[in-house]
């Protein structure tokens, strides 16, 4: 049987994320951290009511059972960064592609907004700029925008990039110091901000990294693994509770 983290071995890095659902309390701090880090705009009321809000990282609740035996589980869902992404295959202009380090990249300035990638994504984690959302932000928001992340104009598709700008910074630093990237040097915003430390991030190709170790855990599973998309976001299932 295929290992949960996939057999695909490239020589370089292969960035991946592990989310321990047993530790996740559903607080939503990852969503907030992501929005601040990646300049994700708030949408106005009308757009919100039409369910057009953007949330690269989304804590999706799932309620099980019927009253009074009800239980709600939370599942934080970023872009799954598939090794075999259905969205990149259909892009007509090469605006979304799988980069050599396994991150599904998005070129905002080339995207024509046909939304075929959104229709093709089985996880529904790609978002569209229905209006010029940035323009509607309070001035203070734009003033304190993260200078490392470009603002998106209307009419383009965006999604989680595993905080790619952080990787660029880390790489620059490593190159200046003439060394390799150190394990744990490249982190993502949702991971940094998770109060219960449910999110792990690192190089799946490095056998000593924590994510590689956790990906081999018996609790590890990937969302819709049967589709063959080979996501690099790996979940650790909840243990049975006796309460």
């Amino acid at each position, binding site marked *: 049987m295929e290992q949960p983290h996939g057999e695909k071995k490239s020589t370089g890095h292969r960035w991946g994320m592990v989310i321990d659902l047993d530790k996740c309390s559903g607080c939503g701090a990852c969503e907030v951290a992501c929005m601040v880090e990646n300049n994700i705009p708030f949408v106005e009321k009308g757009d919100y009511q039409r369910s057009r809000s953007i949330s690269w990282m989304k804590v999706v609740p799932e309620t099980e059972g019927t009253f009074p035996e009800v239980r709600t589980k939370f599942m934080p869902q970023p872009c799954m960064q598939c090794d075999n992404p259905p969205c990149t295959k259909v892009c007509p202009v090469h605006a979304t592609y799988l980069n050599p380090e396994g991150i599904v990249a998005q070129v905002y300035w080339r995207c024509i907004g046909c939304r075929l990638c959104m229709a093709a994504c089985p996880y529904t984690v790609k978002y569209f700029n229905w209006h010029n959302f940035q323009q509607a932000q309070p001035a203070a928001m734009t003033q304190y925008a993260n200078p490392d992340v470009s603002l998106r104009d209307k009419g383009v598709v965006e999604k989680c990039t595993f905080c790619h700008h952080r990787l660029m910074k880390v790489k620059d630093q490593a190159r200046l110091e003439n060394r390799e990237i150190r394990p744990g040097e490249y982190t993502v915003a949702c991971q940094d901000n998770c109060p219960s430390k449910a999110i792990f991030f690192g190089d799946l190709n490095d056998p000593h990294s924590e994510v590689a170790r956790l990906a081999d855990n018996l609790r590890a599973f990937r969302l819709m693994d049967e*589709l063959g998309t080979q996501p690099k976001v790996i979940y650790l299932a909840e243990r049975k509770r006796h309460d």
Partner: protein
Amino acid sequence: MTEIQKNEHDAVLIRSIFQTPSWYWPAVAVLGSLVVLGFGAYLFQFFLGLGETGLNQPVTWGFYITNFVFFIGISHAGTLISAILRLSQTEWRRPITRIAEVITVAVLGIGGMNILLDLGRPDRMLNMIYYGRYQSPLLWDMTSITTYLTASSVYLFIPMIPDIAILRDLCPPGPRKVFYQVLALGWQGTPRQEKVLNRATAIMAIMVIPIAVSVHTVVAFVFSMTLQPMWHSSIFGPYFVAGALFSGVAMLLIVMAILRKVFHLEDYLQPIHFNYLGLLLLVFTLFWTYFTFAEYLTAFYGNEPDEMRVFWAKWDGPWAWGFWGMVICNFFIPVIILSINRFRTITGTVIASSTILIGMWLERFIIVVPTLANPRQHRLPTGSYWPTWVEFSLMTGSFALFALFYLVFSRFFPLVSIHEVREGREHSDDIALERIHRYRIGNGYIKE
């Protein structure tokens, strides 16, 4: 002046070119204002963003993609039907080939336009050429549709050359005469020219058939190449082609009935044409029903949870009105009307065709929207979609543009091929007799 004006029959075909009917300008004004309204709605959408439509997350495609598939489907009426009828030497085709071909050229443009309406960044449209990658089904669409548009324009033009020559000879000197002179390409009706013309028409008719089939196949591939439930289906290509022919013949019948009335073409478009096309429509009705049955039964029996959520959403969920509307409009009404000889009149076929157009539009709609509203990611809330005035305006604008194209065309070219009708009047007895002799058993016909 020339023989055509003496011949009262064919004079009616060019009357609309040299005399403006009284209803012409009011009709142009009404249709023109609908087109302008649509254009205004588009400007609104262009400057404010696609958010002015009812589209949302996860229903990212709606009316525009539905109309795109619908109009491209209609386009199959024309060139494909005309090519098949020409190649099979169907004698009654003569008055209807041109009407069909004009539909194709008009709606292909409008269908293509609808996909541009759907783009979030129409200003970056040319990226499709700069950065285009053939891995994407959208590139297949672009290639196929532009090829079809080119081929069907040529296929419309070539058989029209003799008619343009007739107009050139009739036209008083002026810019219009120059226009016809250029387009007539020096047609004199010599035997050699006739031979070349027939040859070219036959070659185009053969070429256009695989192109037409490819067009709707790749339109279907946009959906079926994804992993989405009820889209990822291997019969989608042929299913869409069958639906395209179906809606195309329906549109052809409606256009024929309208043109017959407004341009007084009763002598050319007779009840028998409607009867024969009605029979063809009945065949396509049953074909389409068979495909639909196969598609839905396969999904139902497989009972895959993701597929079933979409299935039930169509069967008795929020989209049931569309699904059952489609079944009634595309199957029950047409079958009742078209299979009873007494009902297969002009009125009967027009009623059946109208319900089929509605039904086929609904079919496209319930293919596009319910799948997006019920994505595999079932933990997310189910999507909903209702269009705004922007989409409605652009849809009416699209239909108005189609009618307007027809009106403008009728001012410049005859809607029924004078050359082909005349050829039929003079030679069809011989052609038909020769053909019958060729396969009649026991009359000793030997081909030299």
